[in-house]
Structures are given as structure tokens and as C-alpha cells.
């Protein structure tokens, strides 16, 4: 799980072009949206593309993104559960 978390941090930073942020800055349990990293609905769509492209996981309803992308850890858990 920790390995996946570290990999995800790097992928999220790259996908969302978070130039000023290093993987160590991201707490795997803190919120990615709102108060946390301050991501928004467009970032959520970009993360959906990331899951599809890198992990072959398709999220049909963007509304499900809210739960899945709550934190790096929730993302990692979702991937572990759904990866084919």
C-alpha cells in the first residue's frame, strides 16, 4: 500500500502539474480538495483520466469521484480494490 501511495503522489503531481509541491508535502490522509491541496472539479476530472490511463479503471459517474479522490489513501484503496 505504501508503495502505491508514493507512486500515486508522484502521478498526481505530474498529472495536475503541481510544480511547487513535492511528494513529501502531501499527507496521504489529508483532503485533496477544498481546504487541503485546494483542488477543484476540473482536477477531479483529470484524476478520472489518470485512473483510466494508468490503472485501467473507469469511473462512469464523476460524482463518485468525491469519495474516491478524498485523499491519496482513499485513491490507493480504490485502486487496490478495482484493479483488474
Amino acid at each position, binding site marked *: 500500500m505504501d508503495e502505491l501511495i508514493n507512486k500515486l503522489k508522484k502521478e498526481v503531481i505530474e498529472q495536475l502539474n503541481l510544480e511547487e509541491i513535492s511528494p513529501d508535502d502531501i499527507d496521504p490522509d489529508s483532503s485533496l480538495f477544498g481546504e487541503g491541496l485546494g483542488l477543484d472539479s476540473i482536477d477531479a476530472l483529470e484524476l478520472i*483520466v489518470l485512473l483510466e490511463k494508468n490503472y485501467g479503471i473507469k469511473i462512469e459517474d464523476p460524482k463518485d469521484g468525491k469519495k474516491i479522490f478524498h485523499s491519496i489513501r482513499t485513491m490507493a484503496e480504490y485502486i487496490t480494490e478495482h484493479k483488474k
Partner: protein
Amino acid sequence: MAYINGIGIVSPQLTVESKGFPTEVMEYTADYLKCIEPAYRNYIDPIQSRRMSRLIKMGIAAAKISMADAGCTMPDAIITGTGLGSVEDTEKILSDITKDEKFLNPTPFIQSTYNTISSQVAIQLKCHNYNSTYVHRTFSFESGLIDSLMQMEEHTASQILVGAIDEMTMNHLQITRRIGQWKMEPVNNLRLLENMTPGALAGEGAAFFVLGKEKNGSAYANLKDVKTCINIKGSFNPNKEISTFLGNNGLDARDIDLLILGNNGDCENDPIYAQFADHYFPGKALAWYKHLCGEYHTATGFGLYAAACILKNRVYPEILHLNKVQPKKFENILIYNHFRNTNHAFLLVQGF
């Protein structure tokens, strides 16, 4: 009319650093003149800029520089002109959809819409006022200026942020080279007129202006009037247009002290400027600027910047001289631009 109260220019010249018109000139031998980009973190929060492509960052930086220059914090309108918008984003989508239409991110699409810069500037300033974007080749910026001047007359705005933004990419250069728009090989920008060949030297830039109904303490000049004329099957009559345009502003050709022309090194386009100058403004001082910024749809933004600096400082930089005549006064500057003899535009700028 409107006072030019502040200017912000991102260009292939050292226009961000310089107070006034740059004294050091950047010389390039290149396929096209590329902007010297400022350190964006000085203008945009990195978290906010995460989804911004190059043109958008250039535009926002230029807008913020112009507002700081004018001491303006909240304009009554934000208006932009761009011939092509974010070419980089448009190409990204075209290349993706030409391949397999898979894994498409929404960001390039959002940024490829032409009004992205005017709305991003509005978001940054939390400015709810009038907001619009013009996208008509070399009329794009001029249309934005006409809109601005009308708002001053309508008393709906007293300070307007108006910008001219366009970028070039190597891909787009190659595509538009096919239709003869550009020189086929790298050229030296300072020797552009030495060997007249077909095609212009391409460029890019972001130029923002704060226009005011009242002039502030550091105002540059007065943008008196702007006119665009499309030439459809010979509908453009320069004699009639120029005398009407100047006449409407209480002037005639003799009152013009300096004519700033859009020469871009294209042996098919440049003679139109020479004929125009010889015919209607014989013996006048002639200037040019596209060797400094290159040719692009909203290059007049750089021309207006040059005119404003000349009028404010009452100095006529040598790098701009197209002939050896010196202006007798620094009162009336006429900027004339045309694109393929189809889109003609005049800007009248006055000192005070």
C-alpha cells in the same frame, strides 16, 4: 478617446524589465520571435497557474503589469483580442483526437476557448464587470479598442483593461508556412528589410493597456480613435478612409507627426505601406516595430506601446526609424496596419 494610463508588455524584447521603451535591443536569427517570459510566480499563485498554458500565463502577467503601472485595482471592463487564442492547447487536442480520442483531459479544451484569458483575469481580480473577447485576425485587438472607446462614450466605464494576446508554435508556423505567410528559413530580425523575400517574420506577444476616461499622473498618451476597414472586392478606398478618419478627429494628413507602419519584411505586403506613406504622408517621419516583436494578429499592441512611449518620453528611439525623417513635434501619431491587403486598421494616438 481614452488615456493610456498603464501598459504591460510581454514580448521578444526586454519589455518587462524596462521602464519605458527598452534601450537594449534583442537580436535573433530564428524561425520566429519568441517571447521572453517573466518569472510567473511574481504575478500568479503557482497553485492557480497549474492548469494555465503559456499564452494564458503571458496574458495574465501582462495584464497585472499594466494594472500596477496604472495603479488600477478594479477595471470597469476587461476586453481581449486574440487572433488564434492558445494554439498550444488547440494543437494538443487536435493531435489527441487525430490519434485515438482516448484519455482526453478537459484542461486543454477549457484553455483553447478564446475567452480564457479575459475570464481568467476576471477570476484573479474578482471582477464581475463587462467582459468580452474579439477573435478576428488583425481586427481582434482593434475591435477591443473600439469597444473600449465606445464604453467611454457611453459612460459605462471609466477604466478599462484591454489586451492583445497571441502565440506562435513551431507546428503552427510550419502549417501556415504552407500558405506563404512566413519566411521559409530563420532570418535575422534586425536585418529583416535587407533581403526582401516573400513571407513575414513571425512573432508573438501579450500587450495589455489600462485605458482611462481621466488621465492619471503617469499617463502615456491619448488613444484618440481607432478604425478598421475590411477590403472586400476593392471596397477599401484608402484616400476616403484616411481623410474621413482624420477629419472626424479634426485633423488632416499634415497634422500627423509620425506614421508607424506594420512592415514585416514580406515583399508582397510591405509595398502597400510604402505606397500609403508616399501617397498620403509624403515627407513624414516613418517608423516600424515588427522587427522587434514579429508579425502576429495582435501585433498592433506592440505598435501602440511604441507610440505611447514615444509620446510620453518625447524620444523617438532609433531602432524604430524606417526613414531618416525626424518628427517635428510629438503630438499626433498614426498607426497603420494591414493583413494581406484585406484587413486595414488605423489607430490615432495623441500626446499631451
